[in-house]
């Protein structure tokens, strides 16, 4: 009996309690968001604040689709994040394969060029890209949202590093079997690279879904808003209507959080791997 209360076990219990408290603090803003979104508009100005609304007031969620085309925002975000992710997977895995497994003149110089741009903050290219798209008359279009983000130097780098780590013998075996370069890419390299491809998918999709500054710049009309800029529009129009703003925020977070909670391991591994440059 006595041995259950060793200093060590007490220490562990203390660490557990502190960590649990910290986790609750981390979650509190989400709870507050959800709780506010279910309040009557007047209830937010009560003191002290209610943590659990009574009664639940679902009308905010209906109203939000009436004041702004929120369904359309969803669609725009899905199209943008989906297209960018698919295009990056294709173009970056192509380029990564070329850089990692094929020899051709100028390869290393070109790769150095890719590497050099990795350090450049995105804000540097935003202005010329905006001017280019404006000249093309592409403001307020899907191509403006998608194309500038579809060819990532980082994604190429990530996949090249991963492809380099695959054994070359497999390739030779495939060559003997009469496989061409595309065959090797398709039947040998890609199937062995699922972890890296998943990482890039998660990272790119998440980055695009949450991207704010780029759609803010190239989108003017409400109908072309992605969810993030849509929320900004909502904020501009209903500045102090917290119940509505929180309902909008919940709607914007819902798909990401649902996806994250159902595929947590993939997400965390993806971010860890990508965050560490594929190591």
């Amino acid at each position, binding site marked *: 009996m006595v041995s259950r209360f060793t200093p060590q076990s007490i220490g562990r219990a203390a660490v557990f309690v502190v960590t649990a408290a910290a986790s609750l603090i981390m979650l509190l803003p989400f709870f507050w968001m959800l709780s506010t979104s279910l309040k009557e508009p007047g209830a937010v100005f009560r003191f002290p604040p209610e943590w659990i609304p009574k009664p639940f007031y679902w009308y905010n969620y209906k109203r939000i689709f009436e004041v702004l085309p929120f369904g359309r925002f969803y669609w725009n975000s899905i199209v943008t994040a989906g297209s960018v992710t698919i295009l990056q997977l294709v173009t970056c895995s192509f380029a990564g394969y070329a850089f990692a497994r094929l020899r051709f003149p100028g390869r290393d110089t070109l790769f150095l060029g890719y590497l050099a741009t990795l350090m450049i903050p995105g*804000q*540097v290219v935003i202005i010329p890209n905006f001017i280019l798209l404006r000249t093309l008359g592409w403001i307020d279009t899907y191509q403006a949202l998608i194309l500038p983000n579809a060819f990532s130097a980082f994604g190429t780098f990530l996949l090249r590093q991963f492809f380099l780590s695959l054994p070359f013998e497999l390739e030779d075996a495939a060559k003997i079997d009469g496989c061409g370069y595309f065959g090797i890419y398709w039947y040998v390299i890609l199937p062995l690279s699922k972890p890296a491809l998943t990482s890039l998918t998660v990272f790119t999709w998440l980055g695009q879904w949450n991207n704010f500054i780029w759609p803010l710049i190239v989108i003017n009309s409400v109908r072309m808003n992605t969810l993030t800029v849509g929320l900004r529009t909502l904020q501009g129009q209903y500045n102090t209507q917290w119940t509505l703003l929180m309902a909008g925020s919940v709607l914007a977070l819902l798909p990401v959080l649902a996806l994250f909670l159902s595929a947590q391991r993939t997400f965390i591994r993806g971010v860890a791997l990508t965050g560490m440059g594929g190591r």
Partner: protein
Amino acid sequence: MARAEQSYPPPRPSAVRRREIWAGYGFLTPNLIGFLIFTLLPVLAALALSFTEWDLIRPIQWVGLRNYIRLLTNDPTFIKVLRNTTFFVLVTVPLRMVLALLVALVLNQNLRGTMFFRTAFFMPVVSSAVAVALVWQWIFHADFGPLNSILWMLGVSNPPNWLTSTKWALPALMIVSVWQGIGFNMVIFLAGLQGIPEQLYEAARIDGATGWHCFWKITLPMLSPTTFFVLVITTISSFQVFDLAVIMTEGGPANATNTIVYHIYRNAFQFFRMGYAAAIAWFLFVVIFILTLIQFRYQKNWVHYDL
């Protein structure tokens, strides 16, 4: 080896070799075209643009170094913005790293509920900064926000006005940034911790080392490459703070939360000073570049790759 290669003229590429070269260019081309159009050329264009004045309507004008001179000598907002951002980086980077490391150390112990804790700390990372900024704006609300009502209950008679106070608005943004940034670093630290071989700890314990000793003599040195990596990326991302400032305060009050990237955004897309904004962007790039170089230069004093 090298001499032997030199003494023969380079052989004409064989048919097989030529196929490989063509395949290389073929696979590279789609990405390369996009990379040139949307990354490499814009970087150079931004540099050229920074020596001009252009409002997108009147003809573009070459002004030499004038934008840079104005930036450093005649833009009080820029000085303010630079100070805010530096202060923001100096506070949030250490906090985001130390707290993330603490959490990672705890989660690495396999406590009961580790899965839940990890989810809780990681949820803000996947959440859109805009939605997060909105709810925090509401949390920081001076009269009806939950934060001040808790402070009142704890007996703070005069809690800060947070986002409308020139003194507290920037710290409020820092709190949100730390809250949102811990989880990402935590995951990377956890991966680093799991890479430390268990035998090291066992050997140390046999020699009678305490947990505290193990932490300083094994964990920290073994983790130093990870720590270095986290330091570099956290610094870079901290310098680019933007979303929070736009949504929570619009840079206010009185520029108290205005940041470098927000200043770029305003100059380019609200005042249409394309050349000037490009100059600020290049300035930011140079600052980040120099800081990263310094970090790489001094890493050998504390980063151990060879243990």
